[in-house]
């Protein structure tokens, strides 16, 4: 029998409440300690920055995924996910603090420092593997140069922050007024927002990820980023829901049905990632052009062959089987565990994307990598608490909240 339908959220425990201060200051502390110790463990700035870039890409894709889910929920007038949409809105808004986290990557590029992790910064001192490609890189210089790199980054953050702020502010003003026209306005903006999101994500992935190997090109690389972003943000929303509910917040509002739905999307995007990753591999493998295959060659030597197989197992094979059964997807704790596992896989995915070519010729994870991740997550948690503030964690004034609260999977 169906549970009685409700049309209002439980009035209490809708905010972070007492969790807020510890999260904000604890996260900040963890962030400072984590990054500082990572820096001292890494030894030199360049190897610290490479580990830092992995953690940064991990966190910024989660935020971007949040923006994607908010936008697509408005675009499709989704009812099921209204209960968790505020979490996605906060994740999306956290792209703004990500701008601060981006500074350590941007500054060496701007100053042309040798510590910069991007080899195209200084065309006069190309590393050995790029010797002979000077003309090619000079040809790309109008795009790949410090000032334009910075301008583009500012544009990305402006677009993401602007879209996220629009959705979050609209949704919050609806909390008080319950004005249905706000939903229509957000829906109208969601279509251009989706286009903006796609365009900026594409170039951000080119700039921050692909340009590490400035002579490599793959047009599916941004889709690969997107697949990871969509999956990791769903995982983050699941995990945050679970942690909040365990701490006694939002206890009645996010139900098994929502976990089930998040689980379906998680499952779908696990496989989507596999599909995209394989598409990229297959096309390069089949065409067998030296200007493309070398990228995978780096990922098959010095122990990275094992590293690549680990990626397939943890990011595709294992989770694909582990979250396929419906009964397991309806188990909150199990899904939270799956989310943690997949977030780990997502971090490892970026590790695999960034590290092999120059920074880590032989496969291995160092404590500095992990500490960087912990530090950045600390800052991110702090930002989450800051943005969430004392406001509600679900869109209490949304006209589709009733639909979401009483939602049942058939």
């Amino acid at each position, binding site marked *: *029998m169906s549970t009685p339908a409700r049309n209002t959220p439980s009035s209490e425990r809708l905010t972070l409440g007492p969790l807020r201060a510890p999260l904000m200051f604890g996260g900040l502390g963890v962030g400072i300690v984590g990054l500082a110790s990572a820096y001292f463990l890494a030894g030199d700035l360049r190897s610290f920055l490479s580990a830092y870039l992995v953690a940064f890409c991990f966190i910024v894709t989660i935020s971007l995924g949040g923006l994607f889910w908010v936008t697509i929920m408005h675009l499709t007038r989704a009812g099921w996910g209204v209960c968790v949409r505020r979490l996605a809105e906060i994740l999306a808004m956290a792209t703004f603090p990500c701008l601060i986290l981006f500074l350590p990557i941007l500054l060496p590029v701007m100053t042309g420092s040798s510590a910069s992790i991007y080899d195209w910064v200084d065309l006069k001192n190309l590393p050995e593997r790029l010797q002979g490609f000077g003309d090619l890189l000079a040809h790309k210089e109008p795009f790949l140069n410090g000032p334009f790199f910075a301008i583009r980054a500012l544009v990305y953050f402006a677009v993401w922050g602007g879209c996220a702020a629009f959705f979050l502010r609209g949704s919050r003003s609806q909390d008080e007024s319950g004005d249905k026209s706000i939903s229509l306005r957000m829906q109208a903006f969601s279509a251009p927002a989706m286009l903006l999101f796609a365009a900026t994500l594409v170039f951000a992935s080119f700039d921050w990820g692909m340009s590490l190997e400035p002579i490599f090109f793959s047009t599916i690389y941004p889709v690969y980023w997107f697949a990871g972003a969509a999956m990791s943000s769903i995982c983050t929303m699941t995990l945050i829901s679970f942690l909040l509910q365990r701490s006694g917040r939002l206890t009645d509002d996010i139900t098994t049905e929502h976990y089930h739905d998040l689980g379906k999307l998680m499952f779908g995007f696990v496989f989507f990632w596999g599909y995209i990753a*394989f598409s990229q*591999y*297959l096309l390069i*493998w089949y065409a067998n052009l030296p200007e493309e295959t070398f990228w995978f060659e780096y990922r098959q030597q010095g122990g990275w062959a094992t590293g690549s197989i680990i990626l397939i197992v943890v990011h595709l094979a294992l989770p694909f089987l582990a979250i396929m059964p*419906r009964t397991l997807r309806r188990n909150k704790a199990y899904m939270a565990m799956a989310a943690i596992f997949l977030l780990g896989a997502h971090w490892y995915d970026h590790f695999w994307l960034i590290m092999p070519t120059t920074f880590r010729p032989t496969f291995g994870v160092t404590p500095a990598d992990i500490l960087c991740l912990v530090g950045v997550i600390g800052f991110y948690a702090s930002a989450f608490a800051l943005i969430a503030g004392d406001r509600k964690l679900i869109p209490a004034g949304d006209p589709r909240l009733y639909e979401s609260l009483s939602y049942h999977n058939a």
Partner: protein
Amino acid sequence: MAHRPSPTRTEPQVKFVGYLAEFDDPHRLVAACDQVRQAGYRQIDAHTPFPVHGIDPALGIRRTRLPFIVLAVGLGALAVGILLQWYANATDDIRPFPGYKFLISGKPTWSLPANIPVAFEITVLFSAFATFFGMWGLNKLPQFSNPLFRIPRFKRATSDRFFLMISADDPIFDATQTRQQLERFGALNVERVDHDQSDAELPRFLKPLAWCLASIAILIPTAVYRSQAMTNEAPRLHFNPDMDWQDKSKPQTVSPALAGAEGSTLFADGRVMRPDVPGTVALGELRLSDPLFRGYEQGTAVEPGATDEEGNPLEPEWVTAFPSDVDDAGDPVLEVNEAMMARGQRQYGIYCAPCHGYAGYGDGLVSRRGLDLTVQGLAAWNQAKSLHDPMVVDQAVGKIFDTISNGRNTMGPYRSQITVEDRWAIVLYVKALQATQERTAAATAPAN
């Protein structure tokens, strides 16, 4: 059960199907379903204009087995997809239907990345089939007719009424009691559903119609087959002109005219087979090592016909020892051992002995026959060189290799007939031959 009408031959054959109860509210329907199920009925079904939450447990419907069917079919299709490709591409020894293990552009016949897309698509296709047709099977579809469609009230099941059906096949079904129960559970109306089975036969016109359609359907393929296969003075029909006349080139033909472009050909020079780009090197033919492939020290090549100031021909620096080149795996290309010697003897017997003779004195059968003909004035033959001529004995191994490769005087080049390794093996054998003859001369000298 007593109320069932007894069928007779004259009256239409009617089967009592069950009772249809009508409700005007989904909640009342769900409640009624619950009560009916608790009363012990199992052969029950509900018909509603939209999906009603909670109706499944109320009707006692268990979760569908469809996912497991799909999983099993999907895994089976995955295995079939991989096996099919393995059979078609990587085997040719399954009789009587061997696969097609063809070597195409040197690609491996079996390589997993290339097989994944097909295996994946077959898995998806058959999973979709299993989902779709499995749903049909589990729902006992297709059903072209249902006795409920004959009930006028039932039409409202697609707009604003909610129906509960209890089948007469249910073990505890009782014509009077069940009706009373349904009314007690809040049905607006309970209707008896009968199935008139007298019109279950197909209409009579269908069979001839099907024959007609089938006959018409094979007309066009027949016409196509006829016009393409029969002998006829008229030109062949072309159904795909753009496939039959393509702007493409075949080997050993002139460049075709471009369709629609008067006077222009695919290639400006009118040739179809394109010359190699200057500097092109065939795979595995780079041959950078001068000692191994040309017999002289690296970089000492001379222009053909070059001479020094006195007019003597210039020569490169011939190698005096067997080249020590290694292959990609790091193993030496040439290993001077008994196997190489045996190989050299064999190849010498094939290629050299006819003229130079088995002992190397230039008295092979061909050479002797040529001399005979010369004596008779029927040919102009120069005797083959004796390999024991001091001039030859003193030659470096590289120079002998060069002679075999490119010929000398009237001897022709053998580089296209004898592989590099075999040429070096012949050089080794020739050197051994010379050593034996020297020793013979030295050994016999004191006796003389």
